[in-house]
């Protein structure tokens, strides 16, 4: 892992204007992200973690502070939301191709790349189905494939498995872990699940209640590749306890 950060966030603060002087969502958040690092932002609801992600995605302007990407000001971003957010009028494969279509890439090469990703996320045979035919887990796989297809500099995941049932969610952790192992993207994932953050990430940033500040910057020293068994080890339990204490 190179030590030159791909992303530097400095003294980020966000205040949403409201009737009583503004709502402080984030206060003085600073951190760095190295290339190919998987970072989990962990915090209770209302800690401004989604706000942080929306700023990184360029959907929101910070009130104060700066974000600096190593590769210039407009990095390529792949984003996965809590809901799959598929276009219902596009088939599975057309949804995955959308980012390439917006980039003006030609149809043939887009189709080849999309087919690759269909295989990566295990959706062979569903290429030409409508989103309405998919289960929640399958829809989220499509969303992940779509976020990866234009080879983004950074992948932003906003509670990507929050709307799935517990069993599907855990299966998706293993899936995402496998996908990350193969594609080695820089990832920032927002979550409120301690096990999710431990199982998937290299580093966990724990945010406090609003206004969110970084309370703990925690290195996850679990070996990779990780499998289901790891979640039941004593070491995993010890790390989980530490995070739990930090959240309070």
């Amino acid at each position, binding site marked *: 892992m190179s030590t030159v950060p791909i992303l530097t966030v400095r003294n980020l603060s966000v205040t949403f204007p409201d009737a009583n002087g503004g709502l402080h969502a984030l206060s003085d958040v600073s951190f760095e992200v190295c290339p190919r690092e998987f970072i989990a932002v962990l915090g209770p609801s209302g800690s401004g973690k989604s706000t942080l992600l929306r700023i990184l995605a360029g959907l929101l302007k910070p009130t104060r502070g700066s974000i600096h990407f190593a590769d210039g000001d407009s990095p390529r971003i792949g984003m996965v939301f809590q809901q799959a*957010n598929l276009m219902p*009028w596009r088939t599975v494969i057309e949804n995955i191709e959308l980012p390439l279509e917006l980039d003006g890439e030609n149809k043939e090469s887009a189709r080849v790349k999309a087919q690759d990703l269909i295989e990566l996320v295990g959706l062979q045979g569903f290429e030409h189905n409508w989103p*309405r035919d998919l289960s929640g887990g399958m829809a989220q796989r499509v969303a992940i494939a779509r976020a990866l297809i234009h080879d983004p500099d950074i992948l932003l995941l906003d509670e990507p498995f929050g709307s799935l049932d517990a069993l599907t969610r855990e299966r998706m952790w293993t899936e995402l872990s496998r996908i990350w192992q193969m594609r080695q993207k820089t990832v920032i994932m927002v979550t409120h699940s301690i096990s999710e953050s431990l199982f998937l990430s290299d580093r966990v940033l724990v945010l406090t209640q609003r206004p969110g500040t970084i309370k703990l910057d925690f290195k996850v020293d679990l070996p990779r590749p990780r499998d289901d068994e790891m979640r039941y080890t004593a070491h995993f339990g010890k790390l989980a306890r530490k995070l739990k204490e930090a959240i309070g």
Partner: protein
Amino acid sequence: MNLNFIRNLPETAKRGYRWLGLISLAAGLIVWWAIARFSGLPAFVLPSPLQVWQRFLLSLTDGELVQNTAVTLVEILLGLLWGAVFAIVLGYLLAKSRTLEHLLSPYLVASQAVPLVAIAPLLVIWFGPGMFSKVLICALIVFFPVLVNTIVGLRAVPTALYDLMHSMRASQRQILLHLEIPAALPIFLGGLRIGATLSVIGAVVGELVGADHGLGVLINVGRGTYDTPMVFVAVFTLIALALALYGIVAWIERKLLAWQQIAEL
């Protein structure tokens, strides 16, 4: 009305339901015939189905029907086109700008309070008995439902999908093309379907008020000369036109909206 359940039936059962429709139509014709035959009403009050059919064949051969239908159809299609085009453009602007919406809403609401049938004579006085005044009436009557549905359709685009497009750095043009148009299409086409049938009404109202050609003129002439079978022929032709237009829009809907289950009828 939601007849979706028909789609889920096996083919044979569907055919059974189609037969029911035909049987009911045949029964209607028989009842009509029986009333005309046994009530003793003269043909200029209630012609029998057979008399209407004969009048239909006659008007076909002397070219009267085809010529007047063509005029009415052109009025309807031009009115539909212009009404829809203006409604789409204004609808897009209104959906994007609340300021513009509030600025124009008194006029839009007032325009709906004016019964078009009542001002049709004015429009004919101002713009003459030719085709233009009919096209204008059609366009005005089509305008509102298409406008409203364009606005509602555009406003119903999920904000989450806007977020998605912005996160992919999509341009305004790309957002319009890949998100707003397809997302607004179902509601918009619903408006167009209503507009298509209203446009037939608009054309006839205009022609009844004053015109040289058209199915409305046939109705007026038929009434004046006690040629009631002709009135029936013209009315049935209008029904056929309205159904055909409705059917075409519904067909477009089925083609474009294969991704969603649409309610038939």
